[in-house]
């Protein structure tokens, strides 16, 4: 009897907790004034206390990825606030929350009506809780990125291991497969895979997978070859699409490529120093290779770009104050000069 009573009490407290948390700040598209204009009877510019409307007198909540992130570097170099691109040199007193990944950024800005952040273009498709901002009047789409009018873009780069100057088991075959795989990015099939996974291809395709199989006999042999990749997490989607197609469509079924992506910082260290002595074969970066890293590379470390991605400034879907933003305004926002959303609207 007492146990039953206790169970009831526990249930009651659980339901109490659940109801108290029910009105979460996540945006329901039905309640969202920007999506459903029929329900929108209050002027978004007003300072009324209705929780559904966007209150421009509130402060701007800043979100930024941590130093070392390729997305962060691209964003801040792009908007012209280079001081914080690589280091955490914020102005005094500016409070910035740091989500730990692209997805975390979207979920945090998506649950904070007054937040502003940035993320990779290919990730935001279908996410209704955030709103992508146009940059300098240009809407971020694949077309505007390809024709170069959308400025906040970056290359996904790769760099391969120096097979001649490092000791490696089965080196000849591994080298051949690694070279074939990076050449695959530029084939017709490779570019289709990259595009289908959200990457944006800017150069014309050269050759087909057929030609690659002829060029590298190991692809049609029976040799067992295992490759490892490392580096940026942003390339993960594009990379896994390429790996699946490549390993699935070559005659040699004993070739496997396993991706363990941790961050752009691990790309060059992964192929030169490795993880406890085991060197990876191909490293990926969602930013340009910096001078410190270039110094570690030799001529045999072939590096080039794989495809292009755009970085997009995002706000919460409830935010009706802005839809277009400039680099100058973004810089002032992240410098802490524009404190409230009203300031931002006035500055635009």
């Amino acid at each position: 009897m007492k146990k039953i009573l206790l169970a009831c009490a526990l249930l009651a407290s659980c339901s109490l907790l659940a109801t108290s948390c029910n009105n979460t700040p996540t945006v329901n598209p039905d309640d969202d004034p920007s999506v459903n204009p029929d329900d929108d009877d209050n002027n978004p510019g007003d300072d009324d206390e209705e929780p559904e409307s966007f209150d421009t007198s509130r402060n701007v909540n800043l979100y930024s990825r941590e130093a070392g992130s390729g997305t962060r570097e691209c964003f801040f170099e792009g908007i012209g606030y280079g001081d914080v691109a690589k280091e955490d040199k914020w102005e005094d007193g500016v409070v910035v929350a740091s989500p730990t990944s692209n997805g975390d950024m979207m979920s945090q800005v998506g649950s904070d009506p007054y937040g502003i952040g940035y993320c990779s273009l290919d990730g935001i498709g279908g996410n209704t809780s955030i709103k992508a901002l146009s940059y300098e009047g240009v809407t971020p789409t694949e077309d505007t990125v390809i024709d170069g009018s959308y400025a906040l873009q970056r290359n996904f780069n790769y760099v391969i291991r120096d097979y001649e100057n490092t000791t490696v088991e089965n080196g000849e075959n591994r080298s051949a497969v690694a070279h074939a795989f990076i050449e695959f990015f530029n084939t017709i099939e490779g570019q289709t895979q990259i595009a289908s996974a959200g990457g944006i291809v800017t150069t014309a395709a050269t050759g087909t997978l057929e030609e690659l199989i002829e060029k590298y006999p190991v692809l049609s042999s029976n040799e067992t070859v295992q490759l490892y990749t490392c580096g940026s997490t942003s390339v993960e989607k594009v990379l896994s699409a390429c790996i699946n197609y490549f390993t699935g469509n070559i005659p040699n079924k004993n070739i496997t490529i396993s991706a363990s992506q941790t961050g752009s910082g691990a790309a060059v260290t992964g192929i030169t120093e490795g993880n406890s002595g085991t060197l990876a074969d191909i490293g990926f970066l969602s930013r340009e290779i910096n001078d410190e890293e270039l110094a570690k590379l030799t001529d045999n470390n072939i590096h080039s770009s794989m495809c292009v991605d755009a970085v997009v400034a995002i706000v919460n879907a409830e935010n009706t104050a802005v839809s277009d933003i400039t680099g100058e305004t973004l810089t002032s926002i992240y410098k802490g000069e524009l404190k409230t959303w009203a300031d931002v609207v006035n500055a635009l």
Partner: protein
Amino acid sequence: MENIVKVETKNSRNKRKIIVDKIIHLLLFFLVAICASIIIVSVIFILIKGIQPFVDNYGADGEFVNQSLSSFFTNSTWTYDGNGGAMFFFFFSIYVVALSLIISVPTSIFTALFIAKISPRGIKDVIRTAIDLLAAIPSVIFGLFGKGIINPFVYNIAETLGIQTFAGSSILSGALIIAVMSIPTMTTLSISAINAVDQSLINGSLALGASTAQTNMKIIIRSAKSGIFAGIILGIGRALGEATAIQMVIGNSANGLNFYNIFSPGSTIASAMLSGINEASGFGYDIRFSLGILLMAVIVVTNLILNAIKNYNRDKDGPVRKIIKKIGGLIKNGKEKQEN
């Protein structure tokens, strides 16, 4: 003849036993040595890696860049250019743990009292199991719980108060998560401490006419003080070192130190080490080991201080007493001098 043979076999049997014993002793000693050396090796490794940023050159193009020792301990802004300081993380670690103690200490003491002395048998087992299960939940699960429940909860509180938060990612959320996580440790140890209280003390109190409530508060908790304190020390240890769950709810800001707004985002030493380590390379990676040294130092010093406080009443000539006496004497002297 037969007798001698028997004695000899007995001796050889004994010898064999002795040898087996010795082998087992060696084996056990070997295992102990492995355990102990893991601690020593990891501490030495972190020390060496953590001192590197202060000594090595991280600058490109011939510039000499390394972490300045003085700004590491004085600056409260975290940067990766060598002039950053860890004081932001240091203060927030202590602050978040202190906030969490306000919640967790009373909760766990009274829970323990309820389980050990007040609750009926059937309920006792259920609650006990629930608390033990709470201790077994991994910190990532607590982190998800915090993201899904505590953050919106804090966000709602702040909105009702008219304070703006980063969608609930705040010091308060971190403190709440840490409190939830340290409650099982504190409660379990408090229960054993309360159970160990001498029954004759309780009987004496009741016989003198004190009510059960008075006995519970004034006799039982007071006598179990040292055991409860041991639980609190362990709980603080867990709270200070917690990274995963905290990192998911606290917002990871590394700028703008303030203590008055518990709804603003922050960062503890442990969460700063964890967040962004996958993206870090070079200096940004190595400096995390320096934070590791700081974290170890903070934990050791906190434990020493807490143990000293715990033993304060027991040994009359303990070091803390001596220091306090000395300070008291100095103040007295100063006052006398002023009066003169």
